[in-house]
């Protein structure tokens, strides 16, 4: 079923919408959640929460890409859950590693500067992503959006793991320079 048809079901308040979404994007969302949480049950709960959030959001929203829409919700929910469960002790996993990597990529903050608005930061990141060659962008997003391990990315894109690692390192440096030029303060 096309995304638009499923979205129409949401707008018609048909509960079949959830079943159709789960059928089409259940595995996708589960994979995203699992990549972050590394726990099957937590991931399942996260995906269930995604359907609830989607149900509550449509209407008024009418996403053109339902896949991206539910993926974002899943990612946010999984990250929230991950942070809650790792609040006491600094946890591990790909999220933690990705954050550590990213921390190095961000320019030092001027303590007097005001933090850039989240929406401005997102817009800047979109410009940055647009500036990247496709393959590089894919690698970057698979790492920092989906939190895949470099070995997983290598396998998915059929690249040597070392290539992925060095590509990520270069992209982080480029991001650092980009944020500096844009005077983005995070």
């Amino acid at each position, binding site marked *: 079923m096309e995304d638009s048809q499923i979205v129409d079901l949401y707008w018609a308040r048909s509960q079949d919408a959830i079943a159709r979404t789960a059928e089409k994007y259940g595995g996708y969302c589960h994979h995203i959640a699992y990549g972050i949480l590394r726990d099957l049950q937590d991931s399942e709960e996260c995906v269930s929460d995604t359907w609830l959030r989607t149900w509550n959001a449509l209407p008024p929203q009418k996403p053109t890409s339902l896949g991206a829409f539910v993926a974002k919700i899943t990612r946010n929910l999984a990250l929230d859950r991950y942070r809650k469960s790792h609040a006491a002790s600094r946890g591990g996993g790909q999220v*933690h590693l990705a954050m550590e990597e990213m921390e190095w990529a961000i320019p030092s903050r001027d303590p007097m500067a005001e933090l850039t608005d989240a929406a401005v930061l997102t817009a800047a990141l979109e410009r940055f992503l647009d500036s990247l060659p496709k393959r590089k962008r894919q690698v970057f997003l698979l790492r920092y959006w989906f939190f895949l391990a470099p070995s997983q990315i290598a396998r998915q894109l059929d690249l040597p793991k070392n290539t992925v690692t060095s590509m990520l390192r270069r992209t982080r440096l480029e991001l650092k320079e980009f944020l500096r030029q844009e005077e983005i303060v995070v």
Partner: protein
Amino acid sequence: MRAKRVLDALGDVDGRFLADLRPAPAEPKKRKWPLILTAAAMAALCIFGISRLNPPATKDLSVGNPTEQPPADAVQTIPEGVFQMMAGPLIDSPERYLDAKFEELAVAGLSTNGTLDYLRIHEPEFLLNYLMRNFMAGGLETCQWHDGSAAWLRFQMWYSMLEGDLIPSETETPLLYWQEWTGHARNIFNRNGWEFMADRPVSQQYLELRYGDVSKETLDDMYRKLAAAGKTTNETLELLKDEVPYVLLDYLMADFMEGGLEGCQLNDGSAGTLKWQTWCSLKGIGDLIENVVETPQGDWLDWSQWAEKLLRLNGIDFFDEETSPATVRYAHLLGIS
């Protein structure tokens, strides 16, 4: 926290960036052996004989000389750094610790058998606890509720007996449900003219090859003697764990290999008994061995009927689907439910 802001903001980027991205679930694939076999994998394969590199063409699952011992260097070729790499704070439970180890070793290109050998020799406590936990959790039925790695481990061990080792060709633990693995395994077996769940000659072969009946019988005997001496199930397990951890480890691994409850009927019922008694203990029913002083003889069916009677006397439904799906399944299998 700055990284958190960036990662959060990244999560809100336009959906078009995700259009051509979808993390692909790992599919079991064969990798070209000459390219990927590490020294450790080669050594591990030597344990079972190079003949296993080729899938057997018939149902004859000969596995080589049962007395063959792993070469001393079979587990010493594992890179030292692998375990150090994993000894970080990311592991918050023993299962995850071992799961992560297993995964990392797999990523490092080690074979299933090489990994198991390593863990058996260098980390027996972890492996023992891991297998005991799986054993107590009821085996297959509960694997799907966890991260699948127990089922995956079981499947890999089993599969590797037939077609060589999957892990080197996978490079990591797949993130698939057990059911999907089962489906995959079933297809492989069907292609080879075997029935996936019909029998477990491989497990049997594995037992004979790796541990022999001696260890198992030794433990059965010890278990009976301890039970006869009035030891409870838990006391017995604890004692065996302390006194003969490797025997218990082998014993539990053997049961693990056989597929849990379903495999019990093929043996003398002692694994089923042990599992069932442990289950009773965990359910708070108390320890049955203590009450009956000795472990009853007889096959599993005798045990089931005896247990059912005893539990009913205590107002407990033995075949309660909610609390013991494995038992129910087993009962269906035997046609006694």
